[in-house]
């Protein structure tokens, strides 16, 4: 039974690929829990199935079973073992969470919702006040990579039903997100209307994007590729269509992309490259673009 649990815990094949180191650690945690769960599952189901066959009542037998009302040592054992398991599990989860940057010391003080009532322009609804940057609701920088490289900052704005990414360094605005490989990326996120959630399944990270508050996510991709970005909080009828792509690129490709887009934006002065609907390759959404109410106007307004 132990062997089966150990084997299944490692070979369930249930998770998608892992595109960051943190994701790998989360997977190990999951495998560990899967092993324990398989063990407990086999134990309890084993007892049930065995009993169903072994202890069936014989026809005509109307006597009762043995009057066992309890067994204190046994009960202590099955109270103690789960206690120990959940204790280990808590510590282990805590450890992983800390390594992911969930307990980023910067994350301690949440300044609370910003007062948006005072913003007069629709554009200011996205009250990104970087002066209050001493918080992280979400995942911060993990303790190991704290010193050294400074992360690439990207602003994320969630609106019904699209993601808008702004690169403060270059001023690029895009409907899809490009990041260089092996460099920490810090997302500063907020929402323009209702709550959304920014989910990268291949990175095992997710954080609600809340209007009036800023939340953060820091991650480091370790594999070049293209990954889905999914909205995971019900945000209206087309919540299911609120998707885009994350492109993890080499340093050069990324620089190239930034350059192309900076150039394009200067040239037209318009936010051409940013209609997320046509940019994302969710073809099946095309017919609904109209209903989704994401048009150039909305996006233009959101331009800071």
């Amino acid at each position, binding site marked *: 039974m132990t062997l089966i649990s150990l084997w299944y815990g490692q070979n369930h094949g249930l998770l998608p690929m892992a595109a960051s180191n943190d994701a790998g650690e989360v997977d190990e945690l999951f495998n560990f829990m899967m092993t324990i769960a398989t063990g407990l599952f086999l134990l309890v189901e084993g007892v049930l199935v065995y009993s169903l066959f072994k202890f069936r009542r014989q026809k005509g037998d109307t006597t009762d079973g043995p009057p066992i009302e309890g067994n204190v040592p046994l009960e202590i054992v099955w109270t103690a073992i789960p206690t120990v398991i959940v204790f280990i599990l808590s510590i282990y989860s805590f450890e992983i969470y800390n390594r992911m940057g969930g307990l980023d010391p910067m994350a301690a003080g949440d300044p*609370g919702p910003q007062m948006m009532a005072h913003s007069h322009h629709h554009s200011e609804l996205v009250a990104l006040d970087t002066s209050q940057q001493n918080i992280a609701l979400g995942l911060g920088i993990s303790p190991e990579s704290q010193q050294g490289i400074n992360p690439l900052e990207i602003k994320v704005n969630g609106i019904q039903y699209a993601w808008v990414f702004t690169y403060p360094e270059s001023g690029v605005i895009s409907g899809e997100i490009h990041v260089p490989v092996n460099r920490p990326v810090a997302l500063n996120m907020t929402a323009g209307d209702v709550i959304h959630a920014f989910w990268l399944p291949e990175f095992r990270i997710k954080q609600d994007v809340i209007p009036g508050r800023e939340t953060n996510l820091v991650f480091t991709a370790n594999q070049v590729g293209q990954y889905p970005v999914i909205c995971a909080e019900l945000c209206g009828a087309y919540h299911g269509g609120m998707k885009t792509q994350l492109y993890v690129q080499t340093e050069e490709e990324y620089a190239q992309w930034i350059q192309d887009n900076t150039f394009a934006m200067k040239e037209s002065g318009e936010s051409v490259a940013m209609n997320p609907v046509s940019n994302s390759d969710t073809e099946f959404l095309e017919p609904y673009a109209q209903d989704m109410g994401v048009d150039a106007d909305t996006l233009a307004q959101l331009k800071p």
Partner: protein
Amino acid sequence: MQGSTVDNKSQIAIASEQEAEQGHGHHEHPDFRMVGLYIFLISDSMTFIGFFAALLIYRAIMPVWPPEGMPEFELLIPIINTAILVASSFVMHEGQKSLKQNDVGGLQKYFGITAAMGAVFLAGQVYEYSHAEFGLTTNLLASCFYVLTGFHGLHVLTGVLLILCVLWRSREEGHYSASSHFGVEAAEIYWHFVDVIWLVLFVLVYLINN
């Protein structure tokens, strides 16, 4: 389960429809209404705790608190109101004491005064509302203020109505006496409860946000 030693006829008679409708059958069980009232008050206080918690969270997390442009609460009327409400609890207790000595007249007198004090409290609150410099939707604190005092006001109103009920019933000879006084006691406990909630509310709404 051991079969009936009682004969069937009497059984059927005992279990007649009418009796069942009364809610209790051949064996009177003791009166649990007081217990029910206490359990209800636990629940009711949880509603208030819910509201208070919301207010306290806002207070704790909002970058600006009290919200910009919010005038200080005018304290004169609330203080008078607090005094009236606290005093009324004592007055009411006198009423209950009178009843315990079988003095229904005393009960009526003191309960009448209590109801009047409750009415004055409500009037004070209406006055406060109509002279406030902020409306329900002005800002968060204002909204909390109206919802909390309003919800509490509804409780005061209920309390006054309960007292009036007791007064109405006490006109009947012998309805309340030293030995039968559930209605009186229930109304009183409820009133004390409303009183205590007010004290908490007074601190949490008026005092700490000024």
